[in-house]
């Protein structure tokens, strides 16, 4: 088991290094925004004195390195700072947003991952058949359409007709079923966006393996096609499938801004957009960092699970 743990520990270490690098990039990128933040927030009419006072209040007069270490340290302690625009605690501001984003992501993931993998397996099993082509065409057209268009088509078809609400405004008092109902349209939009990618990767990974000697051996043992695909090809195709699932899970958390805006869903993406327009750099920094963490975490998990899917590493000599 030694080599396996070594691989995992190495990946973890690399993940931490990446996270530190990303936090530096986010910090520096915001530093490099043109103009003085205090000036921008207070507007053109502010007197130099008020700007100076405000700068001191924000701590902008201190050197960049100190401010970075302060900020990064705060992040580690869970102290995300105070929002510039609303003067509210950022952690408080972000908490419900994170929950909402995760809720929607989990909802879409629970529909799309089983769907994509089953469709991919079916398409591989009935390669070249009508089913294969139909699945391909439908999923490709849905992935080729811009998300907002897809969202509006769904609104037109399913909300205008009165089946589902156009706006997915969550309130804390809602029951779980109500939440599922209200967020069905954004979840469906996201499902349509990510299913194609995962489904095609599953199909390709399986089809790739069909030429290998052990698949021929399975056929020559007289096994059924279903058994060959599920029992002989699928376990060996896990690594690429896990990777594509991870990329799409990360996308569900970080890439849903447009869908959140269309359905007025109170998620992290919307908060980010709002904060950018309000020039609230504190919130923008935190939101960006959370997105980065999500990306790194999912890729890390993908690496670990695809390593675990390799029998040579799981069962060393």
């Amino acid at each position, binding site marked *: 088991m030694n080599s396996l743990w070594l691989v995992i520990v190495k990946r973890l270490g690399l993940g931490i290094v990446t996270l530190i690098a990303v936090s530096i990039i986010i910090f520096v990128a915001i530093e490099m925004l043109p103009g003085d933040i205090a000036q921008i927030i207070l507007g053109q009419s502010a007197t130099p004195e008020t700007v100076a006072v405000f700068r001191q209040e924000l701590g902008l007069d201190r050197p960049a390195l100190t401010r970075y270490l302060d900020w990064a340290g705060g992040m580690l302690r869970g102290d995300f700072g105070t929002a510039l625009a609303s003067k509210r605690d950022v952690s408080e501001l972000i908490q419900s947003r994170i929950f909402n984003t995760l809720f929607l992501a989990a909802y879409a993931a629970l529909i799309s991952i089983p769907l994509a993998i089953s469709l991919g397996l079916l398409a591989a099993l009935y390669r070249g058949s009508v089913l294969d082509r139909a699945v391909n065409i439908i999923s490709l057209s849905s992935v080729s359409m811009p998300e907002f268009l897809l969202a509006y088509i769904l609104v037109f078809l399913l909300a205008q007709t009165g089946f589902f609400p156009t706006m997915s405004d969550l309130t804390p008092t809602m029951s779980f079923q109500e939440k599922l109902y209200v967020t069905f349209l954004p979840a469906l939009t996201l499902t349509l966006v990510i299913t194609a990618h995962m489904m095609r990767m599953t199909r390709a990974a399986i089809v790739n393996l069909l*030429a290998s*000697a052990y698949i021929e051996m399975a056929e020559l043992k007289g096994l059924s096609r279903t058994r060959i695909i599920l029992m*002989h090809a699928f376990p060996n195709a896990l690594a690429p499938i896990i990777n594509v699932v991870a990329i799409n899970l990360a996308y569900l958390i970080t890439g849903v801004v447009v869908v959140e805006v269309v359905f007025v869903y109170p998620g992290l993406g919307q908060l980010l957009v709002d904060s950018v327009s309000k020039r609230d750099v504190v919130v923008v920094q935190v939101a960006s960092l959370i997105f980065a963490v999500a990306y790194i975490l999912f890729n890390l998990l993908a690496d670990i699970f695809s390593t675990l899917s390799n029998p040579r590493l799981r069962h060393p000599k």
Partner: protein
Amino acid sequence: MSQSDEILTIKGLHIEGKTDEGWSEIVKGVDLSLKKGEILGLIGESGAGKSTIGLAAMGYARGGCRISAGEIIFDGHNLLEMSNKGQRRIRGRRIAYVAQSAAASFNPTYKLIDQYSEGPVFHHVMSKSEAEHDAKELYRRMQLPDPEMIGYRYPHQVSGGQLQRAITAMAMSCRPDIIIFDEPTTALDVTTQIEVLSAIRDIVNQSGTAAIYITHDLAVVAQMADRVKVLLKGAEIEEADTRTMLRAPRDTYTKSLWAVRSFQATPKKIESTTRPVVSVQNVSAAYETQLVLTDVSFDIFPCQTVAVVGESGSGKSTAARVMTGLLEPSSGSVKLRDEPLPSVYTDRSKKQLQEIQMIYQSADTALNPKQRIREIIGWPIEFYTGLKGNANENRIRELLTMIEMDPDEFIDRRPGELSGGQKQRIGIARALAADPSMIICDEVTSALDQLVAEGILRLLDKLQQDLDLAYMFITHDIATVRAIADDVVVMKAGKVVEAGPKAEVFTPPHDPYTELLLSSVPEMDPDWLDNVLQGRASSGN
């Protein structure tokens, strides 16, 4: 022979393969019959259609192939008229298959015993626990070590020879009427091959299973088959019982196959005052922490061929990597004409690099498929000798003539447009382009058919005469060593076991390992396997 004795009859089998220009015939009307308990050898060079016919006997055609005409009658039913489901009921259960590479044919995800029991359970022959019990029994009969436990290992945890036995056991799992053996020992070392051959033969004889044994190795088929059918380019050449076929082949093609091992390189005299071109002195080397060469020394003299022989893992290719500077030795040195060579190739001068060239086993992967022959040979000419333009072109043409390929016809071709033997010749020309004094030939004939391989050996011999080249010939094939070597170095587990002139090494008394190696090489005598096994049993080996 009575009709009821025949378990399999193939009549007028035609199989087509898909090419760029449409379907072309790869099996052209082959007939075949197999009686219960009989072993039929199918023999031929690559492209003869042996494997394709073997698979067709199960009603199976690989992707890109189709059975276009003929009848395959198994136990009274035509397989080609059966539904897919009907065919599946026969595959694995009544006709089983043993592939060339067991390592690739076992699914890496499952334990051996689970793959063993899959067939019997799927075909409702046995329950899972019965099948596992049965597996251990067959593992024992296949002489696998620790038969109770070996099934609980994964394929990558078991050696190649053991896997080949495990896959034969798996083929037996449903007690089929026929087993198709497709080159089951080709990928194995000779000392392992002999064990697998005897295990296969015993189990086939004991169970009365009929078999089709596919191989390109005449000596192997002589041990295994009752009858032999010779194939060439998808058509039958002749068929006879094994002893008749070996004693009196009728067709000229068969005769040429039989005669191929008769080639002998021109013997070279060496004067005692000659100094070696390359001298390997007390070299030890390791990959990471694993020692792969221990105190290896040998000399290579001008215009001589040193054959380095050993089984996989013996360190023969590693020795070549040290000599070419691809692997840094942990101790010892390589000398070129008494001058020590820098241990890493990047530190060597162009002149030093030029002196030692290499030819590889697989010309397919050693030649850039995108380049034309002109570039493949022209570049090393320019790099090493500085010839450009017309002079370069003339040199390419001269080299192509030397390797017996028509310059006008081949100079603008790409490797994909050449046969295996032609590609290997281009590999030789590329090595010659540097004008070296020594060439390392790493298993250069192993991937080639015997007739083609012989042509390459003849060419290398002629070039040695003309150009005073020294060869280091790395091989696992004793027949090749007998044909071309002046000196022989026998290696085992990273050490030199025995070294000296060929006549000395190949005449008794031998080192015990050399003895084992030499006695394991199959001979054309059908009684060879029995005699060797008897001899070993009586001497207590």
